[in-house]
């Protein structure tokens, strides 16, 4: 395989068996003696490659199979079938040797020891990864400075705020200088400042050390700030693999400006006011209206606000950013053109795009039905 490829996945599948309960008392009795299982395909054959030094976003709705993929790539789960090679290792087979070369951060799960000081956790990790004392000192100083850990080091983990903890988690994952970093929802629950700090740190690390990063997120701004490439997943299959710009240009749901009035308002009047702004108006209820602006068009938000702001009776204005879920929905709504899954970064033919495009076909109808039920 190409030396340049950090992560290689081919037709990767993971199936879970989930017990199904029968109904009623008689059913419960029968369950005692023979349990039936449902097979759930969490990841239904994904193929992709990530090159060294790339920052790749792995996105999709809850239950799309993102975390399951990450857990197969990190050696936690054993794939049902398919091939996976990261840094030249087969993760689930050579787990102990392999994990020395990677770093992993789970946004929702702490890997630091809860009751002891952060520095104690780091010292233990130094021994776990057999980092020589001098290297450890140097690395710790560097991370302390870049992540602003200073006074946090001697506090127990349970006394840290989420943002502080996440900075410590990152440091913990990087003490042994991994060449590939997996981040599962690294910014979940963080405030704006903390998110920005973490993004900045990741970008700088990628630039300085050439660390390959694969991250899952729900936050499109994470992707926008960090990733040159996104892989979008739905129902365990890849539905898009390519550049972020293309993704947004095609399906970017744009931004919504939601305005709440203290009296009923006519859409026609607002449309007239904003005739030269590319906004699509709709009404949530008779006092709340919504203007959808095309993606990536910062100017039109301020123009729209300038036109509307003079109108009396405005109670509240909110700007709603789209998230990855909106984009997935948008992709299904507008349909998926052929070849969408083999865009941008993988144009070198590295990934098996055909399979992923096939995988996505036939699903849009099903999704529309679900939408209809919800509506």
């Amino acid at each position: 395989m190409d030396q340049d490829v950090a992560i290689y996945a081919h037709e990767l599948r993971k199936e879970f068996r989930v017990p199904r309960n029968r109904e009623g008392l008689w059913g419960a009795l029968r369950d005692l003696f023979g349990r039936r299982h449902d097979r759930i395909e969490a990841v239904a054959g994904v193929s992709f490659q990530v090159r060294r030094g790339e920052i790749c976003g792995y996105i999709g709705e809850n239950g799309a199979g993102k975390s399951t993929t990450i857990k197969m790539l990190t050696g936690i789960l054993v794939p049902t079938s398919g091939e996976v090679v990261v840094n030249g290792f087969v993760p689930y087979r050579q787990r102990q040797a392999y994990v020395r070369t990677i770093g992993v951060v789970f946004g929702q799960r702490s890997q630091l020891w809860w009751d002891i000081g952060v520095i104690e956790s780091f010292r233990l990790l130094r021994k776990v990864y057999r980092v020589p004392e001098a290297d450890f000192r140097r690395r710790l100083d560097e991370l302390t400075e870049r992540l602003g850990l200073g006074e946090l080091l001697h506090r127990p983990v349970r006394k840290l705020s989420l943002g502080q903890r996440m900075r410590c988690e990152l440091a913990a994952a990087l003490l042994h200088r991994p060449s590939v970093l997996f981040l599962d929802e690294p910014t979940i629950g963080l405030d704006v400042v903390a998110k920005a700090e973490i993004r900045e740190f990741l970008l700088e690390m990628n630039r300085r050390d050439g660390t390959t990063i694969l991250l899952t997120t729900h936050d499109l701004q994470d992707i926008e700030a960090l990733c040159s490439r996104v892989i979008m997943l739905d129902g365990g299959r890849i539905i898009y693999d390519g550049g972020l710009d293309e993704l947004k240009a095609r399906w970017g749901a744009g931004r919504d400006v939601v305005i709440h009035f203290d009296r009923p308002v006519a859409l026609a009047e607002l449309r007239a006011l904003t005739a030269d702004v590319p906004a699509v108006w709709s009404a949530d209820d008779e006092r709340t209206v919504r203007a959808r602006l095309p993606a990536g068009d910062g100017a039109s938000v301020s123009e729209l606000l300038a036109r509307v702001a003079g109108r009396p009776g405005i109670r509240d204005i909110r700007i709603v950013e789209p998230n990855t879920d909106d984009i997935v929905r948008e992709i299904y709504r507008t349909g998926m053109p052929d070849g969408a899954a083999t865009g941008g970064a993988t144009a070198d033919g590295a990934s098996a795009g055909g399979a992923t495009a096939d995988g996505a076909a036939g699903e849009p109808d099903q999704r529309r039905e679900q939408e209809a039920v919800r509506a």
Partner: protein
Amino acid sequence: MIAMYAEIIRIRFLTMLAYRVNYYSGILIYAINIGAYYFLWRAIYAGQERLGGMTAAQMTTYVAVAWMARAFYFNNLDRDIATEIRDGSVAVQLIRPYSYLAVKMMQALGEGLFRLVMFMAPGMVLVALLFPVRLPADPAVWGWFALMLALSFVINSEINMLTGLAVFFLESGEGLMRMKRVVVDLLSGLMIPIGFFPAWAQGVLGALPFQAIAYLPATVFVGGRAGSDVYAAVGVQLFWCVALLLPIALMWRWARRRLFVQGG
């Protein structure tokens, strides 16, 4: 490698130390248990010199040392493992370059050492003051007992591991874990020395690993065994230490394949 395990033991010890107040009540509970069994056995002996191959004085010492040994070898490894597999926190252990089960064992050892120092040793002094316990005078007996106690810990922890992994395949493991606890306490000879069971039951129990946890070391301690009998007892313990590794390895491989971690 060794530095890492030493660090894990140290950290567990420190964590336990932080919650040491929980253990003061534990000492009282063990003392009450020993007291209850002491009076029960006194009533059973009712002046008789020797029952089930043990004198009344040996019996008192047996009860005291068996319970105090339990303070060391007892741990909640089964519950720890079952919980970590169920709630998915095993995931953060699997991204580390170490063996999950070996690390669990070391954590249990950290807890065991804490109990040995903070609980078993002072408890033994207290019990020796309260009841007519006769401690062995021969330092060799103490040496053998220390070795056998360590092996008890290993065997008991291995049984706990098996239980914890088995829970993974059941809908609810609570019943299994409780049953295991009662079975170990009963069949290990903690409550009733194996010599008091009917002959056929002694045969069965002799073929099971449980007696190696409490009965064998305690009988050596009270002087019920000497010479080659001691070697044989240690041999049985060593056999189980090794023999239990196989089912653990098989269960672990099976569990890894079926592991299901919550969240996407």
